[in-house]
């Protein structure tokens, strides 16, 4: 598919607009956003609630489509995808981490981490192995058989991160990942993000906490559906030498 050695950006948004409603009551959640995120970058998106950052997250996460504009995820134009392909893209290219962890209740940590692999059609034995490895990576190797209700908030979020990285997605998309955690768990989770970033994975974190933004290499601020500032704090891939893989 590629053949060119020039790395394509993971995210490429051009004039992305999202309008809810119509006529007089129309709300412009995003007003023509242009954003390019390169492979291996660690980006924090900040803004007050209602600034459009959640809408951006939904579009970037292929959970919603823009009203106007173009969005390429890892070179794939998401506007042309039907529902099934959107699901496939979410499964293969994106790992989600939510504020409220969103683990499947009454299902062990191990099974939760296996879930995206199951939907990807990975065989059981391989699934077990990869899920165990992902759990080990977040430091919960011995918690695989625990139910979400038996884990602390920080542990649950780490399981969620394991679930997000188990498919080795091009993008780790986190929506207020520390919003429901105490400060100790917050720093644990952020350390984990640093680690993932150091492994070369692209991360986009939506947050309103400065503490979280401080760890990122690039901070983008939103207001009223527009980017008001885009500040680079550290070079892309500051944590590690970026290995540009072919598609």
């Amino acid at each position, binding site marked *: 598919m590629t053949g060119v050695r020039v790395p394509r950006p993971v995210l490429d948004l051009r004039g992305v607009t999202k309008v809810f409603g119509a006529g007089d009551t129309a709300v412009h959640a995003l007003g023509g956003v242009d954003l390019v995120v390169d492979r291996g970058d660690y980006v924090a998106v900040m803004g007050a609630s209602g600034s459009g950052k959640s809408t951006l997250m939904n579009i970037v*996460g292929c959970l919603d489509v823009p009203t106007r504009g173009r969005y390429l995820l890892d070179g794939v134009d998401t506007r042309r995808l039907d529902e099934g392909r959107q699901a496939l893209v979410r499964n293969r290219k994106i790992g989600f981490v939510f504020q409220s962890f969103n683990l499947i209740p009454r299902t062990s940590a191990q099974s939760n981490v296996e879930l995206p692999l199951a939907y990807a059609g990975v065989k059981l034995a391989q699934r077990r192995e990869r899920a165990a490895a992902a759990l080990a990576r977040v430091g919960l190797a011995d918690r695989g058989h625990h139910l979400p209700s038996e884990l602390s908030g920080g542990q649950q979020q780490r399981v969620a991160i394991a679930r997000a990285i188990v498919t080795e997605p091009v993008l780790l998309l986190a929506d207020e990942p520390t919003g429901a955690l105490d400060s100790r768990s917050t720093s644990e989770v952020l350390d984990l993000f640093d680690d993932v970033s150091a492994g070369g994975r692209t991360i986009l974190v939506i947050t309103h906490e400065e503490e979280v933004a401080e760890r990122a290499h690039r901070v983008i601020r939103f207001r009223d559906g527009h980017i008001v500032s885009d500040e680079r704090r550290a070079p892309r891939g500051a944590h590690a030498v970026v290995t540009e893989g072919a598609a």
Partner: protein
Amino acid sequence: MNVRESARFAVRGVTANPLRTALTTLGILIGVAAVIVLVAVGNGSSAAVRESLSRLGSNTLTVQASQGGTGGRAGGFGGFGGFGGGPGGVSSGTQTRTAELTLDDAEALTDATLAPHVLRVAPRVSASSVTATYDGATHTVSTFLGTSPSYLAINDDSVQKGEALTAEDWTGRRRVALVGSTVAEDLVGGDGLDVVGKTVQFNGIAFTVVGVLTDKGSTGPQDEDDRVLAPLTAVQDTLTGYGSLSAISVQAKDADSVETAQAEIEDVLNSRHHVTSQDADYSIQNPTSLLTAVTSTSQTFTVLLASVAAISLLVGGIGVMNIMLVTVTERTREIGIRKAIGARRGDIVGQFLLEAVLLSLFGGLMGVLVGLVGSRFEIVGVQPVVSASSVALAFGVAVGTGLFFGLYPANRAASLRPIEALRYE
């Protein structure tokens, strides 16, 4: 994602709430068990009726008096409860009817030129409310029949001890009787065979018991062995008087000539009674037509029972749908998570559809089990006969119900938009 994976999720979903699952399955269980048991009861009772009718013999006809012009053919047997296919099939209500069958009518049917296909003829009178008394013991006889010796041959009766009725008994108007084993046992105790030779009072009239009839067994609520046979002449002398006959039993030469014999009987009686087939004052019961009538009645009955049961199965199915809708609503967030991490529409539909099918499958299996066990017991005097097709049908419909009623909730789950589903609290 394969079916096994969906099944694993579905099993987890079903087992997450055991009480709810149990109650939902109970609905299906009752439906399936009801279909199996009720169809079995229907089958059982129609089998019982057929069996009792087959005792009549396939070449016997029964002539009964009826209201002139009505020409009903199935009198006395039309109702489903009419098990009395045997000798007790004729009620004493004949006396009140305007038309009459007489001994001369019976005599006329034995005419070899007018009715060549008639083999035997037995006139019958029945006495009602007869109480037998012997040595302090009493017994109320359910069927007391005055008839001719040929009746034994027509009705396929024999005597297990003693003598059968003879022509001399008839002509001599002898007060002799044959008793069934139920009557005999009640009067003398033991196996009742000692009653032979004793003198028994029937409504105060002394009859000498000359023989005990061979057991016929009982069909449904009717005890075929609770009966007394005596010469018609003697019964008319003592118990019934000289009125109309209750019925005339006629035996055709063979099974093939039943129709011909029936036509001959009609000719003879029409000319004697000055009527035509359209306004005949008697009716002839043909065992084949009777069987057909009873079979169709019992089929209607079975269908009726089955549809009542089917409704309860339907209600069970609606229960499954109801609980699946609740489940989908409850697990909206889980559906959102699954979709966000890459579950496709088909994965979600498969998971919830399988859950619904699991509920109905489990309910169906339990229902088959309960139905089969329940059918082993006698129900309202009927031994149910389980039909394999009803089991298969009930089970199939149960699973189909789960599939059908699971489809809507599953589709509803699959059409949830992930963003909204994720936000659902």
